[in-house]
């Protein structure tokens, strides 16, 4: 198949983002500040794991092992997720701000992929469109409630989260060495196009919700994740996520 390496690189980025972000969201199950939020983060986690499963299944059809093997047996250096999704969140403001920054990028990525020349990816993109609307709806509701409609404390905590996370969010769009090929083949419009669309949407949204967006030229994006160089937080996450699987990899569930 033509453009195989470029396509696989894109699918691994997306699948690993969804898996790791989904796992981080699932950490709020039973612990979120209110019951509705507990359910919301658990539901979003379930959706993201569904997206990861669909993407790993596509990789399986391209000759890779089954989804469980891809999710649970690869080494840290083989993961292609961005640093944003790896960060642990003890602070709910950080969890909500990351949710907004990441899911608005996901929404724009899948919108671009609705036109993908790789038909299975275009079909998945059309399918998840409605699901991601609920994710961005949830995120934008909380941006507003804790921002313009919130208290001094809620605004300050969300603003601090934004400033801490913004360099990581820009790391979502770390270019790959396949950008030209992805564009030319019509598989994907590329990370730069995505970054621009994301900025066009997220900056007005954040400003209308009452936050100050750090000037872009003052921010150094956190790159490395897309080529397998991760923060110190990924390995402990993988250890925990795979603990049960490693007890007996051949177990039937």
């Amino acid at each position, binding site marked *: 198949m033509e453009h195989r390496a470029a396509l696989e690189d894109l699918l691994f980025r997306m699948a690993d983002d969804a898996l790791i972000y989904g796992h981080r969201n699932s950490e709020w199950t039973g612990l979120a500040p209110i019951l509705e939020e507990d359910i*919301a983060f658990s539901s979003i986690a379930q959706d993201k794991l569904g997206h990861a499963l669909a993407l790993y299944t596509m990789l399986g059809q391209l000759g890779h092992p089954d989804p469980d093997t891809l999710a649970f047996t690869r080494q840290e250096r083989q993961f292609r997720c961005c640093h944003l999704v790896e960060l642990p969140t003890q602070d709910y403001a950080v969890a909500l701000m990351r949710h907004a920054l990441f899911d608005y990028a996901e929404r724009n990525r899948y919108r671009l992929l609705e036109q993908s020349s790789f038909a299975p990816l275009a079909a998945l993109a059309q399918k998840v469109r409605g*699901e991601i609307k609920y994710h961005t709806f949830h995120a934008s509701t909380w941006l507003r409630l804790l921002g313009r409609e919130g208290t001094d404390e809620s605004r300050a905590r969300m603003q601090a989260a934004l400033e801490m996370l913004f360099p990581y969010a820009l790391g979502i769009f770390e270019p790959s060495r396949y950008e030209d090929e992805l564009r030319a083949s019509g598989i994907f419009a590329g990370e730069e196009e995505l970054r621009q669309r994301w900025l066009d949407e997220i900056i007005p949204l954040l400003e209308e919700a009452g936050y100050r967006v750090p000037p872009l030229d003052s921010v150094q994006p956190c790159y490395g994740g897309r080529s397998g160089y991760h923060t110190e937080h990924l390995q402990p996450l993988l250890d925990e996520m795979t603990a049960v699987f490693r007890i007996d990899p051949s177990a039937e569930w």
Partner: protein
Amino acid sequence: MRAMDVITTDAVWAALEQVHDPEIPALSIVDMGIVTALDVTPDCITVTITPTFVGCPALEMIKDAIRTRLADLPIERVEVVVDYSTPWSTNRMTERGRAALASLGFAPPPRFDGEFEPEILLNAKCPNCGSTNTTLQSPFGPALCRAIYYCNDCRQAFEQFKPL
């Protein structure tokens, strides 16, 4: 199997109407609108389904339930194919399915033209008293496909099947 035992497509649809959604057992998969194609040949039935949500945990159970139900029919093979190319929408749900939801105390999903916007969630009708004086508590509920509400008139919590 004897050659004269020809299975009709109608008979297979009737059998599929007895396969239920494991999360809402009053609802058949046909009324849910998740069966997108049915192909019946003398030696194989192929049922194509489209998942409600990509991460729906009931999908494997539904596939097994289809195979189990159709195994009663005198045919050699049953194939269940999952295909996103016809994306599921709550607009695919039948009137009978919507009535079944209402009878269980769920608000049926609102119908929409073109593409839905999540703001459509804000106007739900209470399935207990019919009031529209209701408040969305959370767009996420006990299953991926359900949202949680509170009725300000009869003061009961209820769930609406989410438009998608």
